[in-house]
């Protein structure tokens, strides 16, 4: 069968026509070609827009009583009100501001520290590596819980930011570990040797030669630490270690739990925040999924695979044996 006929039969004959997309850099193209990653990104964007647009999306303040306690959802209060008569929808939106900011900030900070430390350890090796690995090991062990209390006591109360900072301070260990391992692999590649022989300074080798080769690892590290930070922040606030007067998804859960919202049937006080947290997590996971595939083309879902299999079945030719 002629190649062209096959391409037509499989419906893959004019692939390169989507102009704008085609001109994008390859990783971006792969990303945009994957529905899951795009869906994740869209969800995240939507959440961000909702968070930033909170003042326009709702007329109610998140931290003040705006109606009777525990009103079920209705036209005015789309998600009902809390035990204290606060509007749940407003809390959800304003809570998104804090939760997302903290998550992204902690994720970014932890990634930054982790990447820098990991790259230095992997690149320089020797004593420095020993010392850094040592610190990483210690950092991995230090639990965030008491640290949050210690730090909160110095800055007055465990605001979401404080929790975020502590999570960043304790959460960079894994990234550092992974980045170090990857750097160790790249360090001995010929192109790094070449750069050294061409008198590139060390920081430039790290930043311009090694880092770009680990971008997907860095992005995925960032995505994962962000998930971790969002979940951990919610968890810590849920068990009461946060500042209950702040409005975040975690404190919404905390108050819902404190006020036995589920037991009294006020599901609307707890479930929307649960859902929002899950949605954010899911969106980030979807993004990570696609980032993984950018890093490793083998993992990629191929366009037209279904058509090919159908074609082979029809012709009685073997598929994957």
């Amino acid at each position: 069968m002629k190649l062209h006929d096959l391409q037509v039969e499989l419906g893959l004959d004019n692939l390169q026509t989507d102009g704008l997309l085609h001109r994008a850099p390859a990783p971006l193209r792969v990303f945009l070609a994957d529905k899951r990653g795009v869906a994740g990104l869209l969800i995240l964007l939507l959440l961000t827009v909702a968070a930033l647009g909170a003042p326009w999306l709702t007329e109610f303040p998140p931290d003040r009583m705006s109606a009777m306690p525990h009103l079920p959802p209705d036209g005015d209060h789309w998600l009902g009100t809390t035990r204290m008569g606060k509007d749940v929808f407003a809390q959800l939106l304003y809570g998104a501001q804090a939760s997302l900011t903290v998550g992204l900030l902690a994720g970014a900070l932890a990634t930054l520290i982790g990447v820098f430390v990991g790259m230095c350890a992997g690149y320089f090796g020797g004593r420095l590596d020993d010392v850094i690995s040592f610190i990483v090991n210690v950092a991995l062990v230090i639990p965030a819980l008491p640290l949050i209390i210690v730090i909160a006591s110095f800055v007055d109360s465990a605001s979401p930011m404080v929790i975020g900072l502590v999570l960043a301070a304790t959460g960079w260990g894994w990234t550092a570990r992974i980045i170090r391992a990857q750097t160790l692999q790249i360090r001995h590649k010929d192109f790094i040797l070449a750069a050294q022989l061409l008198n590139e300074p060390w920081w430039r080798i790290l930043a311009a030669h090694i880092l770009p080769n680990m971008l997907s690892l860095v992005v995925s590290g960032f995505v994962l630490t962000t998930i971790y930070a969002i979940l951990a922040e919610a968890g810590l606030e849920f068990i009461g270690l946060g500042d209950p007067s702040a409005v975040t998804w975690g404190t919404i859960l905390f108050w819902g739990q404190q006020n036995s919202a589920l037991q009294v049937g006020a599901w609307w006080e707890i479930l929307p925040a649960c859902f929002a947290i899950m949605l954010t997590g899911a969106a980030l996971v979807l993004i990570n999924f696609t980032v993984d595939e950018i890093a490793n083309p083998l993992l990629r879902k191929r366009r037209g695979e279904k058509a090919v299999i159908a074609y082979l079945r029809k012709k009685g030719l073997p598929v994957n044996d």
Partner: protein
Amino acid sequence: MRFILRRLGFYCAAFAVALTLNFFIPRLMPGDPAATLFVSLRGRMSQQSLDAMRAAYGFDGSLWDQFVAYVIRLLHGDLGVSTVNFPQPASEMLLYAAGWTLFLVGVATLLSFVVGILFGMLAAWRRGSFFDTLFTPVNVMLNAFTPAVVALLLLYGFALQLEWFPLGRAYNIDLEPGWNMAFMGSVLYHSVLPLASLVIIAIGGWHLSMRNTMINLLNEDYITLARAKGLSGRRILFRYAARNAMLPQITSLALTFGFVLGGALITEVVFNYPGLGKFTLAAIEKRDYAFIQGQLLLLTFTVLLANLIADLLNLLLDPRLRDRSELA
């Protein structure tokens, strides 16, 4: 040998540092155990008693003296006295909680590992199949759910509404603890929901990493060769591919196991499970220094041990790694 010695030395040093941090972190927290006793009694104790109590707990003298005393006690294997359960030795409470945590989180870790690995293998082997396209993203998304939410939902759904499972605890407290069927059955029955809440969110991670490793591996020449040899699919999968794909997973499993004794705080809190996470939280809230120190010590120890084991496992399982070289 030198490698192992070097690692050992390294771990000892890390341990010493952690030991020191363990002493100072709790003490940097404002408040002290005596004062928290007072708060929990809402002030039903005189200031004089309180001051005397502080001395009885051993919190007088300089921090340095206390540190020296702590190290000396540690060297004698004495973790000190719990102030939440004064004057119970902290080690007793620690052991009790550690046992339950080891059971709950240990089993959950193993279970999610085994299930996740199998799922991952299946998804990679039948790549693009219904199972893979549906379960892989779903499993992985579950991974991003908070234990708080999952545990709460399970509790309210299956324990409170449907009443299929108990509301919490590790076993029916009217039973005498012992190695008998009734008690163990009760332990299993009580562990179903907490286990589920832990396993559900952990499977995805293993699933995905196994799947990805496997997909890479299935492109290796030795898999092609194994297929060419006419081996059965099962044999290729379990003998030729799984084994290599398991190497990195086993390393992560070892590392994950290091954190088992960190407990599963939220699950334990929600299900009133007598695990280390919950005990530690209480100890932190009540400033039970001895317990916090003990727990941090335990955690440090197991994490470092797990690291060491992971290092050794790698050497043991991967014959290639046994030959290393370096520049003179």
